[in-house]
Each structure stands twice: as structure tokens, then as C-alpha cells.
């Protein structure tokens, strides 16, 4: 929920005013949220998938089970379900059904294919704190990567600014539907996120551009930004809580974002590799009173798995990336499995890659295999939560999607078998109940305008 919708809610509760108060000037009306979602679910018929192996995304596996989607929602999951007369029946024998995959770390649209200068829109590398920028304003819906991700079962994704900056700007959560504007992809009623970055990237980018040039400079930079935003937040809160009377404080886009973090309206995603730096960022969050939603990349997260679980922080990780920077030198293939182990551990498989997002299921499969090598057994019904339920939780959309539970969005993937294999393929992908990818039907495979007339596929 953003600041303005909160203001509206506050007003709804408090704006029944006594008669004498009505003589004061009318309060300024709450502005509608700018750049609002225009997403509309694509119309669908009811669908009943029968006799499949169902992983619900809540840690449960049901064999020979059915999934009924209706009016864009999960209607029911169980055995021997009935269906409305107009339902389309899908034979799920031998198939596996999971919630749609959610990637919490993507740069599709902001670093689009082809990867050329013209499509390099992901890092506003002009100042170390650019909390004012919104990734959605860089998203190119014609990125061919969206359709490839859909073929890999991705139904929702968070698009983040890059990691050049201490505070890189706001993220946006999209539904993975083909559209000509990003607003038509924007996940309705999802909160904004923010991207922050630790370590080597900011100090490398700004080391010779006025700083920060050190990790201590990075920390000073975050602290200064939040100190700055505290006063701004107080002024605006007073204005909003006072019924929005008199002159509004000046608006500052950067401080809007930082104040939104302090209020808890904006989900905090921090690019951070090393265990010691994650510990410092946890202290930063305590100094200013905000909750970190997830550390991203965290190749050393396994070293502080207990602490992350205790602090209710998710870790969005790669299965096997390492070594490209010194802060990634201690990467291990069991990182996700180790973060997952403590009670309350919240492990997420993320991509940060236009290739990786096409097969996040295989990334999870690698983790299962590596964990087995270390005598840690992980079931498919558990592993799928790394790509679905946990990801939804970190993005604060878990009441809407991320599991096959009655009333949730019907974001569903039908796989040709277990998803955790090199040979796994998403055969059908549903978003809000609409079949938007069908491997057996060319007419149900979206293709970006960019590829018309020059595609490599037959």
C-alpha cells in the first residue's frame, strides 16, 4: 500500500468531523495513486485439471488430484472434483501441477533483449542515492524475455533497478502478460519495493565519481539518506494526520520512497553478498526502524541462516553462481538448502538473469541434488515453495497468489512431469485462470513485436 492509499484509509476512519469543524477550509482531496495498474485479467472459461500430481506451494503434495479454476481464481483442489458444465477438462495424468512461478529478482524490460546501449535502462548511475526513480518507468514491454519466461512457467515477477546505487529506486511487480504498456502488466494492489545494494558495486561505480569509495562510505550513505527522510516523513505524516489542511509540504520523490520504507509501505530488497554486510544492514534496519523483506544474491547467507530466520528475512539466491567478484567467492551449491533449514527460514530461488528466469525450476532441482549430496533430503512439495509461496511472501502478494488455495489468483503451471529436472517443460501456463501459454498450440505462444519477421523458431 502506498502513502496515498494509506492517507485515504486514514481519512475514511477519521474524516467524520463534528459540525463546527466543517467551517474550516475543506481538506485537499487525496490524490489517486499515480501510474496505477490497468491490468485486467483475460477472460477465461472454468478449467478442471484432473488426476495430476499437485504441489500446492504450501508444502503439500497431492497425488492423483484435481485443480478447478473458475472466474480467474482457484476454486478448489482435491480428489474427484466436479466441474461446471462449461469447464474445459485437462487430462493431468502423468503431469505435475504447481502454482505459477514468481521471480523476485528480474531485470526484464529494464535490461531488455537485445542487450544494447538503447535498452540499458536499469541503473540510474548518476548518484549513489536515486530513491526517486521507479523501475516501471524503464520497463519495455516488448522485451522478448517476458515470453520466454512465460514458457518457463513464470506468472509474476519483480522488476528491480540495478545494483549500482546504494538506493537504486523502486521496483515494480508485474503479471507476466503480454501488453503494450507496463501499467497493463502491473500487479494490482501489490506494494512497491525498493532496491538497495551493499558492497562492491556502489563503491566501484562511485569510487571515482565523488564516492562512496569504501564499504564504510556505503553505510554512511544509507544512514544519511534515512536521517534526511525522517524529518520529511514527520512533516508529511503531520499533514496527512491533520486532515490535509493548509499548505502541503513540498514533495520530494526520493524522500517519498525513503519515507515509504520507514512507514513500512515499501518492501525492502537488498542486494548483499557477504554475511558481515548483511549483519550490518540488519543493524541499519534497526537503527531506522524498518523491516528488511529479503536479501538478494546473499552467497554467504548460509553462514547466518539462523539469524535470517530469527529476523524474519528471506534470502533470494542463485543455485550455483559464484566467483565473479570477491564478495561472491564463498558461494556454495547448498546455500539455498542451508538457508532453508532453520525453523522460519525463508529461501527463495531467484534469477537476476534473462536466461535463469526461463528455468527457475531447474535451478531448484540443482539445489535438491546438491543437498542430497550433503545428506539433506528435500521433497518436491517443499522445494516448490522456494519459487512460489516464499517468493509471494517476500513480495507481500501472498494473500493473492503463490499457492493453490481456494480464492487465490489462478496462476497455475502444468508440467510434463516433475519440474525438478533438465527435461521438465511447462506445457500450460494459466494467469488469473486464462491459458496464456500452451506448448502444443502455436496460437497460444506470445511473441514480442520485436521478433516479428526475424524469429529463430520455426
Amino acid at each position, binding site marked *: 500500500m502506498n502513502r496515498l492509499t494509506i492517507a485515504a484509509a486514514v481519512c475514511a476512519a477519521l474524516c467524520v468531523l463534528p459540525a463546527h469543524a466543517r467551517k474550516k477550509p475543506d481538506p485537499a482531496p487525496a490524490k489517486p495513486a499515480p501510474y496505477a495498474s490497468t491490468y485486467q485479467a483475460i477472460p477465461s472459461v472454468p478449467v478442471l485439471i484432473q488426476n495430476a500430481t499437485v504441489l500446492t506451494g504450501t508444502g503439500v503434495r497431492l497425488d492423483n488430484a484435481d485443480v478447478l479454476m473458475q472466474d480467474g481464481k482457484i476454486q478448489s483442489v482435491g480428489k474427484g472434483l466436479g466441474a461446471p458444465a462449461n469447464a474445459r477438462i485437462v487430462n493431468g495424468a502423468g503431469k505435475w501441477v504447481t502454482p505459477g512461478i514468481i521471480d523476485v529478482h528480474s531485470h526484464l524490460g529494464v535490461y531488455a533483449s*537485445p542487450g544494447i546501449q538503447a535498452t540499458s535502462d536499469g541503473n540510474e548511475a548518476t548518484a549513489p542515492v536515486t530513491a526517486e526513480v521507479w523501475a516501471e518507468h524503464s520497463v519495455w514491454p516488448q522485451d522478448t524475455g517476458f515470453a520466454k519466461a512465460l514458457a518457463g512457467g513464470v506468472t509474476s515477477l519483480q522488476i528491480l533497478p540495478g545494483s549500482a546505487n546504494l538506493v537504486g529506486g523502486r521496483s515494480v511487480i508485474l503479471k507476466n502478460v503480454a501488453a503494450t504498456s507496463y501499467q497493463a502488466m502491473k500487479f494490482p494492489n501489490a506494494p512497491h519495493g525498493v532496491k538497495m545494494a551493499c558492497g562492491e558495486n556502489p563503491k566501484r561505480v562511485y569510487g571515482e565519481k565523488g564516492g562512496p569509495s569504501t564499504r564504510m562510505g556505503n553505510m554512511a550513505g544509507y544512514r544519511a539518506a534515512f536521517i534526511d527522510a525522517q524529518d520529511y516523513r514527520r512533516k508529511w505524516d503531520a499533514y496527512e494526520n491533520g486532515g490535509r489542511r493548509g499548505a502541503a509540504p513540498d514533495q520530494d520523490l526520493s524522500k517519498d520512497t525513503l519515507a515509504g520504507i520507514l512507514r513500512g509501505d515499501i518492501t525492502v530488497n537488498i542486494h548483499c553478498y557477504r554475511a558481515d554486510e548483511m549483519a550490518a544492514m540488519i543493524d541499519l534496519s534497526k537503527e531506522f526502524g524498518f523491516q528488511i523483506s529479503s536479501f538478494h544474491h546473499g552467497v554467504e547467507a548460509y*553462514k547466518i541462516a539462523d539469524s535470517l530466520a530469527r529476523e524474519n528475512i528471506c534470502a533470494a539466491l542463485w543455485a550455483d553462481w559464484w566467483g565473479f567478484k*570477491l564478495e561472491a567467492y564463498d558461494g556454495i551449491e547448498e546455500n539455498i538448502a542451508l538457508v532453508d533449514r532453520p525453523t522460519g527460514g525463508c529461501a527463495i530461488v531467484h534469477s537476476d538473469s534473462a536466461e535463469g528466469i526461463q*528455468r527457475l525450476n531447474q535451478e531448484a532441482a540443482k539445489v535438491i541434488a*546438491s543437498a542430497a549430496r550433503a545428506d539433506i533430503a528435500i521433497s518436491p512439495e517443499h522445494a516448490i515453495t522456494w519459487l512460489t509461496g516464499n517468493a509471494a511472501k517476500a513480495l507481500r502478494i501472498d494473500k493473492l497468489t503463490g499457492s493453490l488455495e481456494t480464492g487465490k489468483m489462478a496462476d497455475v503451471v502444468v508440467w510434463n512431469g516433475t519440474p525438478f529436472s*533438465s527435461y521438465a517443460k511447462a506445457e500450460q501456463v494459466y494467469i488469473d485462470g486464462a491459458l496464456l501459454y500452451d506448448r502444443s498450440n502455436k496460437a497460444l505462444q506470445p511473441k514480442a513485436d520485436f521478433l516479428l519477421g526475424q524469429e529463430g523458431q520455426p
Partner: protein
Amino acid sequence: MSRSLIFIGLVAFAFNAQAQNVLIKNATVHTASSQGTLDKADVLVQGGIIRAIGRNLANPSGMKTLDAQGKPLTPGLFAGISHIGLEEISQEDSSVDYDLNLETGDSGLIETLRPEFDVTRAYNPRSVLLAVARVGGMSFTALGTDGALLAGQGGVMRLDGGYEPIAGKRMPYISIGAGKLGQSGSTRAAQFMLLEQAFNEAKAPTPGDERLLTGQGRNALNQAMASQRFLVSVNREADIRQVLKLAQKYGIRVALVGASEAWRVADQLAAANVPVFIDAMEALPSGFDQIGSTLENAARLQRAGVSVSFINGNDGTHNARKIRQIAGNAVSNGLPWEAGLAGITSAPAKALGVDAQVRSIEVGKSADLVLWTGDPLDVASTAAAMWLQGKETPLVSRQTQLRDRYLAPANGLPRAYQP
């Protein structure tokens, strides 16, 4: 197989005097040769060489044996064209040696074209990347370099800690396309012009008019043209056609690396006997040289009769082990399974000219072997044991040591006191 079982096996084996002898019984042997797959087969290794393959082989007295329990056994896998041993931390220049980037001089390009550059001289087998690759079942790699149009030479390394390329061989590299426009006056047409000029100069230098190459460079290029196969990094179909024309004109042998649009030229490549090294998970038009990328590149090339080997085009050095997944995904997109395995064993060995030393499980070949927990092309499997020239090689790396340190129960002291 559990980690502890393998460990016990290793301890027992470490004290065996005949460390290059082993009898592996009851494996599903994927030979990567014309023999295909042999069920419930035994493999006898003596002196680091495969001496016999078959059912119920007799056990020579004193021979260490291992029951594979039907698990897959493959040749050691190809780790792709990589910078293993040439690059420790990608973004730390002080630890990176794979490309030669000399400045272009005022008078022309003499500083950039150094075919005599031999990147194997920077190879450091103490790099922690070797063990990481071995844990992934990789046993050999081609050292790559592509800093310039004529980028110099690499060699094939067995990942056993040795310092010299297999059979002492070198492969010359050429790099064509958008990435090298800065070295060719902003047009790829000049890339072919410069290569022709270099080839001509190497074959028949005009005294007093040697413009591009040093004397050593002319010798190196001449030798390469006469006896070696050039590995040519190129992606766009039109560029591939120019490379084929160039190869024909000068009578040189080439293999293509990258080759995103090679499927459009599959018949010509097959006819010219040109092998390819491709990343079969490439599906996006990542640049204007790769507009025609498709997951079916491998399958289409193989159907046309082209020899297909795999590389990891993203992070082929630290994550060389991903090449198994790449082969598996090629299979998932239409390549026959045996061709998928060949693409990370026999096909690259042959294309790189080291198939007498590494390639397949055949009598008389070096025993570079990997036992797997399951299908080696499936990410659901891991390597369970490895032998290099018959010597059991522990699947231990800095990464598994870190894992074990943080998996160990807390003992009251900081983790730094754990092994």
C-alpha cells in the same frame, strides 16, 4: 550414494599402492563411442588405462573394486571453452589473464594481432576453480582467449593439476562480429579484410611491407594454417558464411564457437565438416548478431550431420559445471540423448584434436571416468566418484569444505576452528 560412503571408499583407496588400478563393477556404462550404452557392465582399469569392458570381468588379485550398483558411468566431461586456471575472480584484474589487450598503435593494428600469444603460459592449476569443476564431473577444458581478431592460442587441459596441455597441442582463436568492431574500424567487413591480410602476410610476406604481424606471429599463423583447427567465435549467419568462404579460400580448418545462427547454415557446415561449440540454452536475441537464437540450434545442427559440442556462454568459467544442464536442455529440445552426451565428451575431444587422449570409455583409452547418482544430463543428478587416468580423485573443493564447515555442529568455538 551418501557422502560418508564415498568418503570411506576414498580413505581405503588412498592407501592403495596401485593408485591407478580399479575395477568398477555393475555400472550403466555410457561409452560415448559407437558402443553406446552397456548395461550392468564392468570396467577394468590398470595403470590408468581402460583394459577391459564387459559383464562379469574377472577380478585380478589385489585389485580395488567398486560396485556401481547400476549407476551411470561416463567419461570425464568437457568443461567447455573456459578460463579455468586463467581467472580467479572475474572482476579482479590482478587475477585475470585470459585475454591479450594491447593498445592499437598510431600506424595500425600490429599491436593487436598477435597469433603467437599463448594463453596456456598463464595457466595456474592451483586455482580453486579446478576442484569446483571436478566436483561437477568435469575432467578437461579448452583454455579460451578472444581479446582480438586473431586472439592467440589456447590448449586443452586435463583438470588434474598438471601444467601442460594435453599432447602439447595448441588451438588458434579468431573472433568475429559485433564485439570486435572497435578493432576493425567500426565495420565487420574490415575484420575479414584484416584476416586475409594477416593470412597473406603469414604465407608470403613482402619484404619491407610486413604491416600486421611480428616475425613470430607470421610463424605461428603459418603453422596454425597448415596444421591446426581455428576456433572461430562468430554468431550471425552472414558472418558464418563469410568465415566458411575464408576457410575455403585459405584451406584452413575451422570450428565455430557461439554460433547462435549456425542452424541456418547447417547443411553447409555439415558439408564442410565444420564442428560447432554452442550454448544450447541460448533462446534470446541477446544482440543483433544473435537474432535467430533458438533452443533447437543443437537438434537442427545434429540432424543435418554437424558435430555439436557444448559451451556455457554465460559464466563458462566459474560455472563450467553448468554444461551438463546445457546438454540436457538440448536433449529436452530435440537432440538425441547420446548426442547430448557426445557434446560434452567425444565431440569436443575430436574437434579439439585430443580424442586419442580423452573422449570415451573404450579399451586402450585413458581412464578419465565419472560415476553419477543418476542421468548425467539431468540437473537432478550429481557426480558420485571420479577417476582421472585411473586415479580416484576426491570430490572435494573449497566449496564443499565451506559447506562442511558450516554444516558441522557448533562446538563452542568459532567456525574458524572447524576443519
